[in-house]
């Protein structure tokens, strides 16, 4: 393994067991991501893209192989350590935004700081700052139902960035958005990548966006990397 890489996987394998049937979602994936890189991940449905994202985000654990992030093998962490990893080192955004409908934009963005034990005043202050970065300062008191899809995704991006992670994992962030909004969201991620030296790993079906913004694109098929550009 190369210690200069921010993220590295070694023979990463994930097998789901559904009764007696075993489904191999990822098989011996070897991947490395450098600091500040914008990596695009593409592939057909069921190719293992989301499984890869969940493993890198510490939401799931591999069946075999190892994952190293910033020199630490996260595949060997226990549940508590994985929670701390998710809290401090990685930010995640999803296709369905996954923001809490009963919270305002500000409360959603400040939410991760709650678990970090940050006082309410500081939480709100930092959340307001991040919302300004993503261009939503005027909408901070609005609930998700009062925001457009693009605005909701930007709230999700702000929430992912609140703990100042090194890596941003985006799982189909444009899947529920129109093409214009999709371009804006990916542009936002690209800006964060360039201006804040944030490492971005983005899953997307939209190859045109990948080609335009990503430094490198890998294609997954049947749980294996089949192409790298």
């Amino acid at each position: 393994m190369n210690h200069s890489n921010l993220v590295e996987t070694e023979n990463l394998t994930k097998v789901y067991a559904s009764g007696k049937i075993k489904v191999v979602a990822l098989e011996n994936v070897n991947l490395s991501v450098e600091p500040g890189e914008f990596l695009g991940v593409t592939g057909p449905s069921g190719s293992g893209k989301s499984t890869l994202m969940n493993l890198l985000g510490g939401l799931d654990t591999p069946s075999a192989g190892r994952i190293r992030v910033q020199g630490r093998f996260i595949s060997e962490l226990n549940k508590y350590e994985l929670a701390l990893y998710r809290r401090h080192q990685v930010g995640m955004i999803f296709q369905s935004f996954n923001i809490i409908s009963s919270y305002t934009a500000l409360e959603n963005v400040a939410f991760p700081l709650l678990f970090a034990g940050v006082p309410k005043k500081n939480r709100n202050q930092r959340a307001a700052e991040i919302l300004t970065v993503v261009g939503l300062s005027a909408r901070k008191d609005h609930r998700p139902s009062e925001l457009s899809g693009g605005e909701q995704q930007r709230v999700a991006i702000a929430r992912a960035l609140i703990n100042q992670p090194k890596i941003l994992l985006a799982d189909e962030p444009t899947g529920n958005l129109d093409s214009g909004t999709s371009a804006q969201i990916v542009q936002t991620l690209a800006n964060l990548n360039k201006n804040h030296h944030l490492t971005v790993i983005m899953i997307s079906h939209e190859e045109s966006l990948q080609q335009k913004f990503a430094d490198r694109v890998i294609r997954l098929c049947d749980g294996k990397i089949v192409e790298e550009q």
Partner: protein
Amino acid sequence: MRISDYIEQSFSNLWKKKLRTFLTTCGVAIGIGALVSMISFGKGIQKNITDTFTELELFNYITVSSASGEDQMAEHSDESEKKENQAEPIHVLNEEFIQKVTKINGVQSAFPEIRFPALIRFEQEEKFSLVQVLPSNVCRSELVKLRAGKSYESDQQDSLIVSDSFLHSMKIKEPEAVIGQTIEISTLTFDLSLFDLTNAVSVLQGTKLPFSKQSYTFTIVGVAERMGFAGPMPLRSDVFIPPAASEKMEKLSLTSIWDFFQTLEQTKGYSAVNVRLRSAKYIEPVKAQIEDWGFKTFALVDQLHEIKTGFIFMDMFLFAVGMIAITVASLGIINTMVMSILERYRDIGIMKAVGATDKDVKRIFFFESGAIGFWGGVFGLALGWVVSIVINLVINYFLAKQGVPYVNYFSFPWWLCLGAIAFSILISLAAGIYPASRAARVDPVVALRHD
């Protein structure tokens, strides 16, 4: 997470589901209310009894009775035992005994229990009652709780004290109204003038007994509260007069049919003597001394242990009844929390995705259960208090019709108030164990995909 955040989160989450939270909290409040009113009733009864006993200094009294008499007759109905008793020396409770007993260390005073039947006439009402002779010093002690007026100043006065229940039976509602008024006491006397030959046959048939009545006038100086407890208490009548006034009266001191069966020796003495001690610590040595002399003793303090055991059983029974309501309320909390988890399944996934540990998630749901318990406890306490006031008013309303003075049958000591809230929180937390553990076990990958 900070404790203040857990509290804020729990209240905020519960507030979002107002109706469900309200209904669940109502369930807990009813359970706690039932428990609180049950326990406070038990404690109220205990407090009333022990407070009254202490206030009247009843724990400082020993009632002495001779080893023969009606009690003994009742206890020893067996023929052979009767014969044995007859063989024993008769111990008489007389002035000599009173003089002797007052010299025992710890004894403050002693007075005989003298009671006789009389016809009491006040205004137009007449009533048969037992009149008790009570020395003025006893009358002025804590034993006699006056509702109006004062006790008689000396043993010489032609004054008396009546009980409030006696006035009630005479349909007099204001005790103050009778103070200073006169009352007539008619006693039964043996009249030899009626016992002539012309009457002999009637007397033998029991139709024209040689009794006549003598009337005496007294002034009511005080109205005492009727002691609501049965048993060998120092006060057992509704009318109390001073000893000197009693001595001047001609009367037959027959209080029951057993008096006719007493031997000449037995009728010489008093039926009982009440011994007042300086404090309850002298009970045992004084009792031992009196029993050595061959008398029977009774001290209320001896019954205290049995009374306390009875209270414990009563408490346990009331607690068990209250716990049924609490158990039902706990099931309500479990149901509410499980519903909440199902509704917030995706939110739990989000929490975990942004860095919440299993412990954080568990605590969030724990605090929500605890918050339901807290409000349920507070409202339950208020509910129990209101219910107890209503029940108390209803009970006193009906008892007042029978002349019983107002009594608070419920007691809310501070530990019951705090304990009810603490217990409610504890029960709610226990009910929250399963839902909280279930929430902590939620797989974030599955939860984030959940619609």
